[in-house]
């Protein structure tokens, strides 16, 4: 199969680099030549241990042309986490850039996995058309970096279904000059904010993710490059609204906010700052190819949690989260009645990589159980009210408590642990942790902190710790993380900085 390449231009607005269509074709061809020389072919998996720059997109399309599956990896992960993901996915090789940390590169090379700098393209251009519609195209790890990795696998078919679904609902002209400030290793930033416009022929402006110094300059950048569309997450908007001068030239035609629910107040503030009424929540889940529901016409009154209608998806609210039996009409909630949000879409993932057990727990008869709680209003629009997913949403970055638990459980002095979400004024949620230690002395606490620093990416480190005697469990032995959090918040957390300071002082 040939990959249509009606892509737009690629621009780094803060770095000043730009590739036109001819540049892009050449850069892809060089990398196809390099991958062919390295023996990359159909069904191979390749890690992309970098992102948010022009070369990332050339690597991605080149891999697809060769029939391989691209696996973008968060370069902030520790060497331990990257090695664990590599053990699960067995990549044929890893593409890195000059900002990829040395630690992960070293462990991958020790494991016999070849690393290739993205700048090393060679000079032999080549063409390839080895991809088929049902080949694996993309794998995105959503959790399990410290334990059993959970990789969402999308085929070319499911990705194309996502983009076709979006094209049916969203005004193409609004995406003509799209800005992405989100990481390219997760669904929202990659599949929808970047690839949807770019592969629809629109120009893509890509920046490093989550950089406050760039956020404060965003209004000027929007004006300079006549940006028509951007998507982001609530914490970035809070920062921009506070510190960045708004754009003056009225180029923005549409703005999405995703990865975390948008309040009506923030929604209206964003409209004022951006100068466009077309601002809406874009409800997305990696398993459904990210954006799966929202407002076609976004100039409606803002409401807390209002999402809208399915984009290339059927949205149902059901009174069950049971995926072990077929769904039936009796499961449907009435208008206004809260229940579990289920989705049916041709853009649904192929499944979790080599984890049919997990896939079976999430999907029944093609319906995906999101774990979100919501209702359909009088107009049939989805409104979100909460979630029952076991995850911490730190400013749109999904952190899974089990990943933290898995690291702490392996620390010899720890006998039990429970990580949970804490309310946070900036990120929405932050990470808290209750831990039971055999030895609760400061030496052991410092040792645990050092252990976690080695094994856990910085953004997953708990900001508050509680030392408790036992983790409360249900009669069936399950942890209720909300109950643990409530119990912890009855007393002050450990003063970890002071404990570490005492340890460091002579």
């Amino acid at each position, binding site marked *: 199969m040939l990959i249509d390449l009606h892509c737009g231009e690629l621009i780094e607005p803060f770095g000043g680099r730009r590739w036109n269509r001819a540049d892009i074709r050449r850069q892809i061809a060089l990398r196809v030549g390099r991958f062919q020389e390295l023996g990359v072919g159909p069904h191979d998996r390749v890690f992309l241990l970098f992102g948010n720059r022009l070369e990332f997109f050339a690597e991605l399309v080149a891999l697809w042309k060769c029939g391989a599956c691209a696996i973008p990896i968060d370069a902030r992960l520790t060497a331990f986490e990257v090695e664990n993901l590599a053990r699960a996915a067995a990549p044929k090789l890893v593409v890195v850039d000059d900002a990829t940390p040395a630690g992960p590169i070293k462990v991958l090379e020790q494991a016999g996995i070849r690393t290739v700098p993205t700048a090393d393209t060679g000079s032999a251009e080549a063409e390839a058309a080895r991809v088929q519609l049902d080949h694996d195209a993309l794998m995105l790890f959503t959790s399990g970096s410290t334990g059993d990795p959970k990789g969402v696998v999308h085929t070319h078919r499911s990705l194309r279904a996502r983009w076709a679904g979006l094209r049916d609902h969203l005004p193409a002209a609004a995406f003509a000059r799209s800005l992405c400030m989100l990481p390219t290793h997760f669904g929202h930033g990659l599949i929808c904010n970047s690839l949807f416009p770019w592969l629809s022929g629109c120009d893509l402006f890509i920046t490093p993710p*989550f950089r406050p110094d760039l956020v404060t300059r965003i209004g000027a950048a929007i004006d300079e490059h006549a940006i028509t569309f951007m998507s982001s997450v609530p914490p970035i908007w809070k*920062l921009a609204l*506070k*510190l960045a001068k708004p754009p003056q030239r009225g180029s923005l035609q549409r703005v999405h906010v995703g990865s975390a629910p948008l309040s009506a107040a923030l929604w209206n503030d964003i409209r004022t700052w951006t100068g466009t009424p077309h601002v809406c929540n874009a409800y997305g889940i990696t398993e459904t190819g990210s954006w799966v529901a929202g407002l076609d016409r976004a100039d409606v009154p803002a409401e807390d949690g209002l999402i809208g209608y399915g984009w290339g998806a059927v949205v149902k609210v059901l009174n069950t989260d049971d995926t072990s039996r077929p769904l039936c009409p009796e499961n449907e909630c009435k208008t206004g009645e809260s229940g579990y949000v289920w989705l049916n879409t041709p853009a649904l993932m192929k499944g979790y990589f080599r984890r049919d057990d997990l896939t079976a727990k999430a999907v029944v008869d093609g319906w995906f159980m999101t774990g979100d709680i919501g209702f359909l209003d009088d107009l049939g629009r989805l409104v979100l009210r909460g979630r029952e997913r076991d995850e911490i949403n730190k400013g749109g970055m999904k952190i899974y408590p089990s990943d933290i638990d898995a690291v702490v459980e392996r620390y010899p002095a720890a006998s039990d642990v429970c990580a949970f979400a804490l309310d946070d004024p900036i990120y929405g949620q932050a990470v808290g942790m209750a831990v039971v230690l055999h030895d609760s002395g400061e030496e052991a606490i410092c040792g645990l902190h050092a252990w976690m620093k080695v094994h856990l990416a910085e*953004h997953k480190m708990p900001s508050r710790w509680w030392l408790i005697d036992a983790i409360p469990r249900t009669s069936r032995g399950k942890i209720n993380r909300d109950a643990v959090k409530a119990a912890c918040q009855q007393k002050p957390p450990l003063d970890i*900085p002071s404990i*570490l300071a005492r340890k460091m002082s002579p």
Partner: protein
Amino acid sequence: MNQDREARRQALLGFLRTIQKAGRPVESLSDTDRLVASGLIDSLAILQIVTYLETTYGIDFSIRGVSPEELGSIGGILDLIEQEKK
């Protein structure tokens, strides 16, 4: 160092303790150490510093604007407060 600046410094250190990450004691930082690069806070915590300065010193950032560089160190924050007090 004048007494006002020292008092503001102590108040600022007290605030930074409430938002800092666990890795490094705030007392170990000099006035010129970079708060984010040192690992004391993460980059988006700048928003909490802005809110602290607004509520504690009545600084209106929507009028004066700010660059993250100005808020990048303890000394930089104290300088900014002093500029606004003039």
